[in-house]
């Protein structure tokens, strides 16, 4: 989908939502189409070259913000069996009048277990800040490849072309789409990750998992460990416990909700877990 289309769908859905609510129906409105976790605040392409500059994304709310963006995300981010059937619940108690679009949708944000930032996932708002977010998300991807790959080469590669062919509308490996996918995966898995508390060695560990994912978003078998850092002879037990928390994060929050048309991009994914910046 293009950005426009997705915006349109989301906008329409919100309007439907308000219409239903204003009719004071008590039934829960259906969640926004699951096909649309794309962050609404996608950077427009002119900014892509800039992305090459910023240093490693890591810390700094990148995951948080992403969650923001994917407000319609139905997956329960916390282990509590809260019925988080999307942003809807709050508008009901608030007896929203059919205000022009914006307001009520913002309300759903606060109840969302983690993220603060009441701003935006408003489709209309299109532009709100997270360019930075996206930059970070994108540069996450970019950093992993060679510096050269940051810029254009993808566009000119034969491989890229062949992959592009398999994509419906987007006729390029759009870095934004990839960034979108990364953000979507992160926003779904990170809230499910409970790294071990307090073990001193654990802060210096990282683990890289490989996942094969089915079309419905479920994980094939168990995620495999590609590599792990920070393991010494003395902390092997900690290392195993640590790796298991990563694996559990993936399995708990599967099946992942990702756009079907990009399946070829996300049928195999690697996730790196690094707690070093957590307090």
């Amino acid at each position: 989908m293009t950005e426009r289309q997705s915006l349109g769908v989301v906008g329409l859905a919100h309007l439907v939502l308000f219409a239903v609510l204003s009719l004071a129906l008590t039934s829960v409105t259906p969640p926004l189409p699951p096909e649309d976790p794309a962050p609404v605040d996608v950077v427009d392409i002119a900014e892509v070259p800039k992305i090459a500059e910023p240093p490693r994304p890591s810390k700094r709310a990148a995951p948080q913000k992403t969650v923001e963006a994917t407000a319609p995300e139905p997956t329960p981010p916390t282990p509590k069996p809260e019925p988080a059937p999307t942003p809807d619940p709050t508008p009901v108690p608030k007896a929203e009048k059919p205000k022009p679009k914006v307001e009520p949708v913002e309300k759903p944000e606060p109840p969302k277990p983690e993220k603060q930032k009441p701003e935006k996932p408003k489709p209309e708002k299109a532009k709100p800040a997270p360019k930075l977010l996206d930059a970070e998300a994108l540069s996450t991807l970019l950093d992993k490849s060679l510096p050269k790959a940051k810029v254009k080469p993808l566009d000119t590669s034969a491989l890229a072309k062949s992959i592009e062919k398999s994509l419906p509308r987007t006729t390029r490996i759009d870095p934004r789409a990839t960034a979108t996918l990364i953000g979507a995966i992160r926003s779904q898995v990170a809230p499910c990750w409970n790294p071990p508390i307090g073990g001193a060695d654990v802060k210096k560990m990282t683990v890289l998992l490989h996942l094969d994912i089915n079309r419905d978003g479920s994980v094939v078998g168990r995620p495999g460990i590609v590599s792990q850092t920070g393991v010494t002879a003395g902390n092997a037990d900690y290392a195993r416990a640590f790796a298991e928390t990563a694996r559990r994060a993936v399995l708990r929050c599967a099946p992942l909700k990702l756009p079907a048309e990009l399946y070829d991009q996300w049928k195999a994914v690697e996730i790196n877990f690094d707690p070093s910046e957590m307090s």
Partner: protein
Amino acid sequence: MRTLPLLLALLIAAPAAAVIRVDINSGTAQPLPVAVPAFATASAVATEAGTTAALGQQVAGVIAADLASSGLFRPLDPAAFTTTVAPADVTAPQFAAWRTIAAQALITGNVTANPDGGITVGCYAYDVFSAEELARQGFVTTAANWRRAAHKCADLVYSRLTGETGYFDSRIVYVSETGPKTRRIKRLAVMDQDGAGHRFLTNGQTLVLTPRFAPNQQTLTYMSFANNRPRIWVYTIGSGRQEAVGDFPNMSFAPRFSPDGGTLVFSMSQNGTTDIYKLDIASRRLARLTNGPGINTAPSYSPDGSKIVFESDRSGGQQIYTMNADGSGQTRISFGEGRAGTPVWSPRGDLIAFTRLGGGKFRIGVIRPDGGGERLLTNAFQDEGPTWSPNGRVILFFRTAAGRGGKVDLHSVDLSGANERQIKTPLDASDPAWSPLLP
């Protein structure tokens, strides 16, 4: 020219384009939700401690309480369970039922009566989301000793999920206090680390202080004012036998065992000077380790027995020093504001817990044996006398409240400074000491 590196880049970039890599740098550090349903039993058989079915419930309760007390686990409320565990489920759990309540690990097992009147407790831990078994072990003991089987199961789960060794199958000895502060009655008391099985060991007629376990946990050493002669004693827990150590003319106090149990290290005061001595228990040979000036006391061995940490005021105020077990190489390791005392070496050897005095408060802190990395873990009026859990992860101490008749009670805190909690005792309590893991 440019194209060659580009092509190379493409070749290498191509796989990167094929497998997305996601970085996750934050999660939620929170206790792990686990489910501990009642242990199953093939058939309810009566034992000297109740039926196996009843024991199955109690075992699960003890395990859940242990895990919760560590602050690292969150046992889910059994009222939320959607299924019970039948004997067949113990080895083949219905994971779906546990997934719906978001339990990440399942601890389950069974209790079986043995022909000799004892019980076997089977303990199984599963990862709910990956549907695989994490650990399993059976524990055989007398029916009356079922608590220890439960603690051992909790230790198994704890160590498998955290990577640390456990500490739940252990005991605490301490001084039970009662009465007005000006006429305090003190008794030695012992209990399981979860407070069960509490027993008084002395009757309160003589003032007793600072009890510590021997490595075999069968004996204690402590200080008593019996017969108006303040000195160190050894108490055999099983028989209740008490024996004074040595016949020294002067006050002896602050005793501790060496890790191999063969030596007692303690302080003796003479005409205003207090020094540290060690006594070889078998040969009764006494060796002097410090030679003034001032007060040298509160010695504690490193877990490998090669070094001793102690406090001394030779620099003008109480500070912490380490030395070799033969008394050589005495080095000060605590600096900074205020004073420091009551040092205790962690069973892991990596840290020393101590009391930091200053600013009108006593606070529990930890410091590395080289003197670096000092961290204060508590912040109340008067916290002192730390002791380590067997796995070097939890510190137990006693806290005095300010004011007249201020309560004195036991508290514990995780090494990270989190999960500070009170350990309930029948009366006021001080001078706690934690046993090693029971074998």
